């Protein structure tokens, strides 16, 4: 096939009618591309907010956040999403000390959002239809996790005001969480 025929063939293929689609009787659904748009935004937003909050160089923060946005947009997976949570933790760890920064409550919400949206973006295609009931079922559990997190955060914030040290309370909570992890791992 010569070049002209190649070009004509390519043009014809582009003009060709798309194949018909299988019809599946599902309920009201959300298109998969929503997750592919929201996941990079959440991941980049988490990194950017954490960096800007602790006063890092804006250009550096934007470059790193942009890199995460691109990574998640091109290849959404668990690795960039979880890295995007670890990175703010490291940044906050290196920031000038104070007992408890309430801004971390917002970051915790964003962290869970970024991880969950990245999971959705990884597992659904742009044309996948996510039934509203499925989204609701997953979201209910996420709300519970978030509520527990914010509850622990609230207790930590409250306890941080006392000289006795909220860290003890938070440490107990962490210990509890570790027990949960071990029990869960043994079940799996």
């Amino acid at each position, binding site marked *: 096939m010569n070049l002209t025929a190649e070009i004509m063939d390519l043009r014809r293929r582009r003009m060709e009618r798309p*194949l018909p689609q299988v019809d599946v009787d599902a309920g009201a659904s959300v298109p998969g591309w929503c997750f592919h748009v929201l996941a990079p935004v959440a991941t980049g937003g988490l990194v950017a907010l954490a960096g800007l909050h602790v006063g890092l160089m804006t250009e550096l923060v934007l470059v790193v956040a942009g890199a995460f946005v691109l990574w998640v947009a091109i290849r959404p997976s668990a690795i960039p999403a979880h*890295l995007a949570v670890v990175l703010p933790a490291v940044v906050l*760890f290196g920031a000038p000390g104070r007992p408890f920064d309430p801004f971390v409550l917002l970051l915790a919400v964003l962290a869970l959002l970024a991880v969950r949206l990245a999971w959705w973006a990884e597992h659904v295609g742009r044309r996948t239809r*996510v*039934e509203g*009931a499925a989204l609701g079922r997953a979201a*209910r*559990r996420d709300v519970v996790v978030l509520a527990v997190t914010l509850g622990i955060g609230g207790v930590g914030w409250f306890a941080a005001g006392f000289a006795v040290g909220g860290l003890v309370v938070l440490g107990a909570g962490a210990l509890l969480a570790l027990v949960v992890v071990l029990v869960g791992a043994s079940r799996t």
Partner: protein
Amino acid sequence: MTFGTTPRDAARERRLRRPDEPVWRRTPTGVAGVVSGAIVLAVGLIGGSADVALLGVPLLLGAAWSGRPGAPNAGVPQRETQVHLVPDDGVSRPGELGAVLQVVPPPEAELVQVRVAAPGHRPVDVVLPATPRDLSLRLATVRTGPQPTFVADVRGYGPAGATSEDPLRATAPQSLVLPATMPLGRVPLPARLRGLTGPHVSRRLGDGGDLRDVHPFTPGDRLRRIDWRTTARRSPQLDELYVRRTYSTAEATTILVLDSRDDVGPDLRTWRGSGARRVDEPTSLDLARHAAASIATAAVDAGDRVGLEDLGRRRRPLPAAGGRRQLRRVHHGLAVSSPLGSPQRRLRPPQLPADAVVYLFSTLLDDEPLHLVRTWRELGHRVVMVDTLPDVRPVHEDHLRIAWRVTSMERADRVRQLESEGVLVVPWAGTERSLARTRLEARAKADERHHSTPVRLAGSSGAAR
């Protein structure tokens, strides 16, 4: 279009999977959640930063807690999701195939991802809540005959996607799509009718409705046939009786000859068997099935006998018979006909009943139909050729364009030869199909006009007066 096997099936085939191996596994998301959550929590605790430690809590909790609201102590799913694809016979619209996908996930699962594919169709991905569910599947096709339908891949996910099962596959059985029909009016009949009764008026003397002549009474004539008015006028003394003689009724035999040696679509690039053919474009065999089913229906509705012969297969033809049951047999025979390997050249044309009209459904891509038509016509059969080649789309590849140009010219020559020999050629593709009814009716009327003067049979020499 073929579908590969799932990793689970492949592993089972290679005996890489132990029988007791769990079907649910922890996903990279689950592992990453536990690891990153533990790291962040540890960094916060070691560094004495409660806020840093808090960032690890949602990761750890989300990945490690296998429960959900309403069932906080639910564990990791143990059994695999049960999937069944059941053909749905309740599809109402023609050209539509249906099935029901029954999904029964384990109660501990959170989500189920379903991917439904069908040959010639774009697949659909749907994410559903992990509850027992019957999903209705539909696909539209203009293709007839044996059609592969649905293949569904299903995968269950545990809470937060921390666990998942290996994909499962369910395949729907092949469906046999019977050809649809188009209402036709009168279709050409054989030159000579057969039988002692039927829906058509023959040119023989006998019981019927159409008057042939008035004839003096002879022994054997039935008394109720005496025409008293004519008798009174012609023989006032009643020394001779006159009877009204009628033409007998008879039936016609229609033989459908399907040229199933090839099955080509509008896309020339698929003629060699490579490349997928679209399901929204009928192939030559689909057109042949449709045309043959339409003519068979018209013939059976008119009370005629219909038979079926397949040129592509050496098997016993469906003998001519009438009635709805025979029509169903013809439709089924049409649906199961398909090209089978390299067709052998026939030394003799198929034997057909005498005095039958032959409808040959062919693409006319070779000379074989031409020889058959000529042989049948020499034997006294009336032949109608139905051209079933679809409207071929233009191609840009030089070699294909030249090949098609040569082929189409040869084909046009064959059509011209047939028409010059008095054979009716009825195109059935594209917009020509809508004119087929008119063409067939016009030929039927022309045949009727041609034979409107009854031919006197040798045994009935009594002249009408």
